[in-house]
């Protein structure tokens, strides 16, 4: 195998990694604001995937029109989930929030399996690619990476330059102080949860433009999100994007040499290793 092919595989991995980063950003945002690890994250990624399937394949809308729609509907879904399952366990032991969101995941995946079985779905999106030597970068991968970058940029602007965004950051750094300054913290928590879920859903939509998927795909991407969050440092959205790109790079580097069935083993190994050596993340910046 030539150097170009390996380099191309790495670059392609980086493009996909940007989308992993976007998914992980949702996870890390929710953790940073309310110390809840959302184990229904995978289910929400699948929600975004099926969103694309219904809008593009069933209704015949242009594929990328699903992106804003899944952001909005993901946000709505997240707010509902917050009030149903998360609100009562804010401030209770971590065990309880893990179990509650895990239960939500079970319910959603179970309903999805009953409705659509576990057979694979595929949405074919055609975009012209960029040819480099005898290697072609798929158009959908480039588009997904660009959109992931744009959405991450918008999120940054939102968190730093709007009143609601600033309120979310205030609640993340000290909820009591935020409440005393007149911020309605409960509403802010529900919005932050909605935002996190919206990020999961939109990254699911982007992944579905690139790869086939099933109802159970969420688990694999959820694991990737955890690896990315740990690489980037929990509660640190900017680190998540870097962590995602790093994971994509590792995947791009290993795929030419190893069968796909080893991917979860490598990712899990990486995950445990990171947790043990850098419990605060490799890209952990000073928070705030």
């Amino acid at each position: 195998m030539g150097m170009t092919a390996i380099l191309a595989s790495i670059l392609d991995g980086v493009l996909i990694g940007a989308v992993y980063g976007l998914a992980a950003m949702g996870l890390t945002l929710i953790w940073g604001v309310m110390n809840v690890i959302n184990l229904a994250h995978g289910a929400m990624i699948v929600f975004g995937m099926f969103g694309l399937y219904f809008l593009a394949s069933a209704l015949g809308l242009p594929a990328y029109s699903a992106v804003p729609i899944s952001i909005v509907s993901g946000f709505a879904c997240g707010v509902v989930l917050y009030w149903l399952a998360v609100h009562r366990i804010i401030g209770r032991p971590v065990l309880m929030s893990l179990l509650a969101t895990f239960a939500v995941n079970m319910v959603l995946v179970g309903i999805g399996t009953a409705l659509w079985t576990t057979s694979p779905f595929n949405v074919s999106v055609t975009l012209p690619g960029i040819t480099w030597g005898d290697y072609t970068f798929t158009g959908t991968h480039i588009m997904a990476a660009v959109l992931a970058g744009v959405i991450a940029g918008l999120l940054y602007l939102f968190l730093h330059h709007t009143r609601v965004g600033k309120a979310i950051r205030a609640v993340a750094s000290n909820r009591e102080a935020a409440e005393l300054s007149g911020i309605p913290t409960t509403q802010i928590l529900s919005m932050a949860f909605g935002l996190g879920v919206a990020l999961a859903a939109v990254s699911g939509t982007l992944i579905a433009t690139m790869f086939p998927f099933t109802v159970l795909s969420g688990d694999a991407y959820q694991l990737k999100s955890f690896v990315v969050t740990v690489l980037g440092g929990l509660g640190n959205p900017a680190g998540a994007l870097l962590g995602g790109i790093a994971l994509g790079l590792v995947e791009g580097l290993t795929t030419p040499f190893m069968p796909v069935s080893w991917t979860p083993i490598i990712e899990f190994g990486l995950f445990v290793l990171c947790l043990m050596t850098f419990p605060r993340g490799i890209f952990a910046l000073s928070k705030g």
Partner: protein
Amino acid sequence: MWRRPFPWLVVAVALGVALVPYWTDDVELREGLVLAAVYVILASNLNLMIGYAGYVNFGNIVFFGLGGYVGVYLVSEWHWPLLPAAIAGGLAVSAVALLFGLGILRLRGAFFALATIGINEAVRQLVTNFEPWGGATGIYLSFDAYAPLGGPMQALWLAYFLIVAVMALSLLASYAIRNSKFGLGLLAIGQNEDAAATLGVPTPLFKALVYSASAMLPAVAGAIYFFKLGIIEPTGAFNLGLSIEAIVMVMLGGQGTVIGPALGAFLYEELRGALLTTEAFSHFQLVIAGALLLLIVLFVPGGLMGFVRRRWPRLRWWLE
């Protein structure tokens, strides 16, 4: 330990469960009870983690599957008798868990839980790619394996008695740990890990030890169970669904009590049986389990036993 009524209650119930199907020669009842006993073993050992130390272990089924693999491998390839093979499986898996635990249990709270989520998938893939254990097809036991025990009929009854014995041992161990200094340390970790460490509880060591202890009996049970089944393969051995259901059982019966998880396991088994026979609900088994778990977590975090003990405090003497 034997001064309280609880351990005697466990022994009596186990004897009854073991002997009733044998005397009536009711094979159907036996098969139902095997499943219930496995559930009780899984739930009771998981409770050491969830209920005592306050740490959720999403990959608890890994112990059961790995123990099964070690046991079946020893019986089939090295021609070991069942009991030593099962004990060897338990010890081996427990040792691996201790090593892994010493590595990851320095992690606190949520980080630890995240590490256990990936472990089931990683181990399943590892075993699928591991040729000495038959890869994706697994290991089949030939009929000869049952010959030393006097044929398949006798072997199945022996396996049944052993599983019931492991169930009783799980409950007794859970009771003994709860009433020991070790158990007290675990409960302190569950309440407030910082405070426990300040008061001199060696928290990383205790967490690794309880992780390892909760691996032992499920691994022994796995070896016996898959011996009885006659075949072990990765999808059946590392069934994430069962891992999840074990969590539901612990929470349903009441985490942190000795008898609660067993009660939860039994109730869940009954519920599951009822759901599976109802055509409309058989597809929604995990949905209903999930909804049940959510309702318990949100509204009755103490589970059934928590409710009973608050309502009738006098029963505490009888129900640990």
